[in-house]
């Protein structure tokens, strides 16, 4: 079997929060290597919860996941915290919605990237600077000293989102989870970031779990779409060229799924 078509991630989970039961009810998802899967749904349908349970960071929001999360042949829910830490950032990257509140405002961009690098790599500072420069240019950002010295408040939101993406793909993970990565951006910047995701997917072969409520952007870059309504996957369908070109009918079809109670 071709490596491109083997399964990278397959999960079947239920999640309860301390103050809310059944946030995810037996949700099944499957992601092949190098694939872009769109996960759409309304606010509060549990999209971000899926992202957090894959990274096993759900406890930060007082949630508990049960079931099976198979990633590269291992069940993540069975791993120790130490093993899980070595996966986060190295095998699985995360890009959050708002770059301005996800990057540390008092640290320079260079420092934050170096910190993300040294967690999973040995400490050669020359190699570190090279990798950072290379990664920054692959997300179309400058990598001169002046830029690395800047803080989040001194760059644009679009640039900050690119920094966040650079940080997530620094170690060439096999899975990138993007949790509404474009919803804080204007339309032009959105398009640029979507192009960037497509490029990273094609060049580095990174599989992307693209979480969004923006159907247009999902339709533009995803290979398949899963629709999540109130903690259940109600529909999974491939995005065909036909669907992309007749986006109106396709949007209607999708929003029809979402409205289903």
């Amino acid at each position, binding site marked *: 079997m071709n490596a491109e078509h083997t399964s990278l991630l397959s999960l079947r989970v239920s999640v309860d929060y301390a103050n809310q039961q059944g946030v995810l009810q037996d949700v099944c998802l499957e992601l092949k290597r190098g694939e872009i899967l769109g996960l759409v749904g309304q606010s509060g349908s549990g999209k971000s919860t899926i992202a957090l349970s894959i990274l096993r960071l759900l406890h*930060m929001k007082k949630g508990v996941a049960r079931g099976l999360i198979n990633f590269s042949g291992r069940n993540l829910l069975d791993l120790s915290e130490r093993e899980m830490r070595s996966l*986060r950032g190295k095998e699985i990257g995360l890009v*959050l919605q708002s770059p301005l509140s996800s990057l540390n405002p*008092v640290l320079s961009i260079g420092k934050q990237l170096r910190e*993300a690098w040294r*967690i*999973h790599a040995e400490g050669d500072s020359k190699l570190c600077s090279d990798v950072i420069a290379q990664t920054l240019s692959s997300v179309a950002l400058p990598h001169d000293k002046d830029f690395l010295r800047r803080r989040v408040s001194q760059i644009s939101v679009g640039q900050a989102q690119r920094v966040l993406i650079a940080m*997530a793909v620094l170690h060439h993970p096999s899975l990138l989870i993007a949790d509404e990565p474009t919803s804080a951006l204007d339309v032009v910047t959105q398009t640029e970031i979507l192009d960037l995701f497509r490029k990273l997917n094609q060049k580095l072969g990174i599989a992307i779990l693209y979480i969004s409520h923006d159907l247009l952007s999902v339709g533009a870059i995803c290979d398949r779409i899963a629709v999540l309504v109130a903690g259940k996957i109600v529909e999974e369908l491939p995005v065909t060229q036909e669907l992309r070109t007749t986006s109106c009918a396709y949007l209607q079809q999708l929003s029809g799924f979402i409205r289903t109670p």
Partner: protein
Amino acid sequence: MKVARAIAVAVLLVVSLCALFAGKLSSPDYAFQYREVPDAAPSSAHLLGTDDLGRDRLSRTLYGTRISLSLAPIAALISISLASLIGGLAGFLGGWPERITMAVTDLFLCLPWLFLLLIARSLLPLNAAPLTSVLITFLTLGLLGWAAAARVICTEAREFRTSDILLQARATGQHGWRLLTMQFVPRLRPVLFAQFLISIPVFILSEANLGILGMGVAEPLPSWGSSLRELESFSSFSGEWWKLVPFTLLVLVVVSFQVLLSREEISL
């Protein structure tokens, strides 16, 4: 605002320098009694006159400044360290540890600060050696003054615990002590610095309060508090302006700190 800030810095600098070179600027023995000239008016020998025991006022004022100005920051450091420990831990743990700690802090804040200080200080030995009395006074200040800062730091820590910054850092694999020192401590630094600056004038004034009541730094060691003691009644200094010098100095320094602070808080 810029001018005010520059003036404040200059005042603090001059006062600290004077305190530092107290021995050069005045008689190096603040406790020596010139018995033939007690309660004298300013003269070329004693620029600010002498007190009722014949001790040089300028020398006592400068050495008192040295004690008050160097020990108030130390007391502030103690209270901020305590506050970071208590507030930081409570904010990070969350849940019931946070609720209990904050309840205790609130209770602490409800107690009238000056009375608390008076009670605590009077429970401790008042007839201790002069140097011990200095330590006791400022330790009491430091150990009692943490509550307000702890609240602020707890809020910061709680905010960080639930922030996307922490989530993003955890998602890149960062963890443990290094995550705290790299991501949280730099974020906390401006808050800690502001809290530190706020506490200094508070502690200077509190020491002066204790000193006026004779519960602060023990004789013969001078401090601003004990210098203010003889201003108990108006008649004791009417027409004798030089007796007001320590008081003026105290007001100048506290006001300068406040001017610096208002700037600090804006820049936060």
